[in-house]
């Protein structure tokens, strides 16, 4: 995969530009007051409790949720114009794991947009699929049934699908939810490599440790944007506490929902 930094537009042009933007459904905003300039190579953690608007904001950047106010520019244009340059990893819960398709088929779907309805995948396409699968460390599972992979392997597979079209902007919606330590570490390595390649990353999470390990910037959300800046200046105890209203925040890889240990205040000693 090519490094993207060199292809990025003028350094001054942000990859994602938001000014008092609001996004929501059926005319009702779920998140508002979002102002940020995200540049090539930035990696931004969207942090907030459940229902704080993280996924809604990611959907807005893709043009999937309603843009209800303010300005939004993605890669210099509208989300729809930028779509072919964006890689997206949606939340895992709506995937049909019963479909009898292989990991390779699932990753090939990342090329469908480029290929259109009928153009064959071809040798070059197959080579890109293989490369993307190997890049997330699943080379030996390429022919396996997608539904028979572990949850973490499935996430890495969908990440490979998001990356196979060589996107400049990568949007990851709760990619670390429910992952065990090895899969989480593997996904972190991939995210850090994407950063090193100069891609821009937006990742939603309620895992503060992840933000410190893999991100350059943090955006705190709770129905509105509470703060945006570098990790060091934004993961302040006061700000994080305000974001979570004392509600639990994950401090590390504790596994599934419902097993949040500690709370935001507890985790802040390490900030």
């Amino acid at each position, binding site marked *: 995969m090519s490094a993207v930094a060199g292809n990025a537009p003028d350094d001054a042009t942000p990859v994602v530009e938001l000014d008092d933007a609001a996004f929501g459904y059926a005319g009702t905003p779920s998140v508002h007051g979002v102002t940020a300039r995200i540049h090539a190579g930035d990696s931004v953690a969207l942090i907030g409790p459940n229902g704080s608007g993280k996924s809604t904001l990611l959907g807005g950047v893709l043009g999937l949720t309603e843009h209800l106010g303010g300005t939004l520019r993605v890669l210099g244009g509208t989300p729809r114009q930028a779509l072919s340059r964006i890689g*997206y990893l*949606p939340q895992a819960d*709506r995937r049909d794991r019963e479909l009898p398709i292989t990991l390779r088929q699932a990753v090939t*779907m990342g090329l469908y947009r480029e290929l259109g309805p009928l153009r064959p995948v071809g040798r070059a396409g197959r080579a890109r699929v293989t490369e993307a699968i190997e890049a997330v460390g699943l080379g030996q599972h390429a022919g396996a049934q997608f539904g028979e992979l572990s949850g973490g392997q499935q996430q890495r597979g969908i990440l490979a699908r998001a990356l196979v079209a060589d996107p400049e902007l990568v949007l990851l919606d709760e990619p670390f939810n429910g992952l065990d330590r090895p899969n989480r570490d593997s996904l972190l390595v991939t995210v850090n490599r994407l950063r090193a390649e100069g891609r821009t990353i937006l990742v939603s999470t309620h895992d503060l440790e992840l933000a410190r390990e893999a991100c350059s910037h943090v955006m705190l959300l709770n129905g509105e944007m509470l703060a945006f800046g570098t990790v060091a200046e934004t993961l302040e105890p006061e700000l994080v506490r305000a974001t979570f209203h004392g509600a639990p925040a994950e401090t590390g890889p504790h596994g599934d929902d419902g097993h949040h240990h500690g709370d935001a205040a507890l985790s802040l000693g390490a900030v």
Partner: protein
Amino acid sequence: MDAVSLLEIFQLPFMARALATVAILAVASGVVGLFISFRDLEFVSDGLVHAVFPGLVVGNLLGGVAGVLPGAVVAALAAAVLLTVLGRRPRLGSDAGIAVVLTSAFSLGVVLVSRQENYVSQLEELLFGRLLTVTPAQLVQIAVVAAVAIALVLLTARSQLIRAFDPDGFRATGARPALVDLVLNIAVALLIVAGVQALGNLMVLALLTVPMAISRLVTRRFAWLVPLAVLTPLLAGAAGLWLTFTASVVGGHTPSPGAVVVLLLVGLYGLAVLWSLARRRGARSRVSSGGAR
């Protein structure tokens, strides 16, 4: 009297046409049935089957036998649009909406057909089809409608696959879910129209859903799903026609060939269930003996 050999009976023109009808419908329902199964559209298909019924009746009332196909096409397209709209409004409750369309359309059809004089035999023909009296012209109609249904599905196959697998990822490709859903519903509706005259209203649903259900029980290899789903109704079709013919010649009684074909198909489904259970049990015992080591 002896049973008649397979080769002999399919040299009779009307039996050859019946077999050709089953073969065309087997190929088309294999392709379209893949996405009915992947998208869990079995109940939607049932709704479409029943919604086509009043179209058949009105077509028949207005134009006789020649009016049946146009009537069915109009009803099928209207129902496909209606069910696509209902499917996209979760507040109306998709399943409840389908049930309303299904029962009201079917009742309307029955009321209309009861105005006919020989209404019981008319109803029976509409429900169970006339596989043995397919005319050459009807065979051409069936082939054309089935080909359009296959083309619609093949043209949108990639979108259908990713929509079935990951609806959120699908929306991020920039494709239009409503359009992709509508195309699939129209393909299903057209295939129902193609099958309904020969197999009847109730039997065509079995052809759309049972073969792919068998395939998914028997294999997890994507590439084998459609070929298997074409092969099973072909086998059931040839055997069912032979049984019907033999029963008629030997026993002097002709059961509905469409019903016999479907019963055989369901028999194959039963075998597939047993096979799948046996294989799963085998896999479990291998795992537990491996774990004991």
